[in-house]
């Protein structure tokens, strides 16, 4: 049942991404200032928005973990942060390519949006090493949740601070939508945002399914090997799920990933 839903979601994502690409290149006109280079924004900006939302979701899931002590929430938070880091790398690279084309430089340290995003990425780059440094799974999950909440709260604060800063060099896509994104630009931009968000959700569910299957297999292996051979799991940054928890998660549909 769960696999069928994932397949439907994956097909919807594929269709949405294809439509976005077709509209972006063959329907939306070239920007008066940026020209064809502006097409980069249809992936760069939605990627950035979805990345930041993913980090915030990681924090929300971490709050749920601390409240319920249910390790499935820790897994949700872990996968969200992990996936957002991958998307964040895409944001940094596509942003640099755009900067080179538009400004003539790959990076500008005086530009607050770029530097603040890099800071967020560096902050989250410490998440996996933090988890790996703690051997006890319960303590690891607790500390990681505290980190995810703190860092998740930093994301919107950082966003507001950058908006309030006066040295604007970076184009504002969502600052004043009606003024900055007329007609077809707006349609394609929002479609692109939906497509990238769907992509994030699909990959998140895909990874959740994989993690739950691995957890179930590990637990089954321990069961089949017998109680005497039961060992502590080897040190890993990945959250630990018991057989009951993993089974419950799968029954829910990949840890509630409906």
């Amino acid at each position, binding site marked *: 049942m769960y696999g069928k839903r994932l397949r439907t979601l994956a097909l919807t994502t594929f269709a949405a991404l294809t439509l976005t690409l077709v509209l972006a290149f063959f329907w939306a006109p070239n920007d008066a200032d940026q*020209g064809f280079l502006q097409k980069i924004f249809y992936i*760069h900006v939605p990627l950035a928005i979805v990345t930041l939302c993913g980090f915030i979701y990681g924090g929300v899931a971490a709050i749920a973990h601390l409240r319920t002590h249910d390790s499935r929430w820790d897994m949700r938070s872990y996968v969200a942060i992990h996936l957002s880091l*991958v998307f964040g790398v895409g944001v940094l690279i596509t942003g640099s*390519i755009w900067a080179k084309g538009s400004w003539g430089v790959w990076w500008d340290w005086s530009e607050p949006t770029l530097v603040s995003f890099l800071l967020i990425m560096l902050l989250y780059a410490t998440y996996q090493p933090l988890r790996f440094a703690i051997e006890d799974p319960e303590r690891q999950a607790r500390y990681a949740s505290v980190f995810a909440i703190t860092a998740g709260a930093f994301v919107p604060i950082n966003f507001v601070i950058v908006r309030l800063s006066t040295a604007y060099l970076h184009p504002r896509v969502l600052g004043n939508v009606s003024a900055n994104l007329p007609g077809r630009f707006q349609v394609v931009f929002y479609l692109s945002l939906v497509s990238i968000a769907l992509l994030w959700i699909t990959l998140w569910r895909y990874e959740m399914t994989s993690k739950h299957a691995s957890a179930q297999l590990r637990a089954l292996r321990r069961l089949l*090997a017998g109680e005497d051979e039961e060992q502590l799991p080897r040190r890993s940054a990945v959250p630990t799920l018991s057989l009951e928890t993993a089974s419950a998660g799968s029954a829910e549909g990949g840890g509630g990933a409906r």
Partner: protein
Amino acid sequence: MIPLHDAVPYVAAAYTVFFALILLYLAIMSGKLGRIERELGELTELAARRGAGAGDRDEP
């Protein structure tokens, strides 16, 4: 306005990076899926051996 012939390589590079990143992620996940499949095979074998062992003990 930035000329089209100047902008095309940058746009192509950005979209290539995006799709390459997604494909790389999927390739890594496929590797993990392969490992799960292998482990599942081992567990099935282990369960079958246990089943056969239990059957031998039940026989008079």
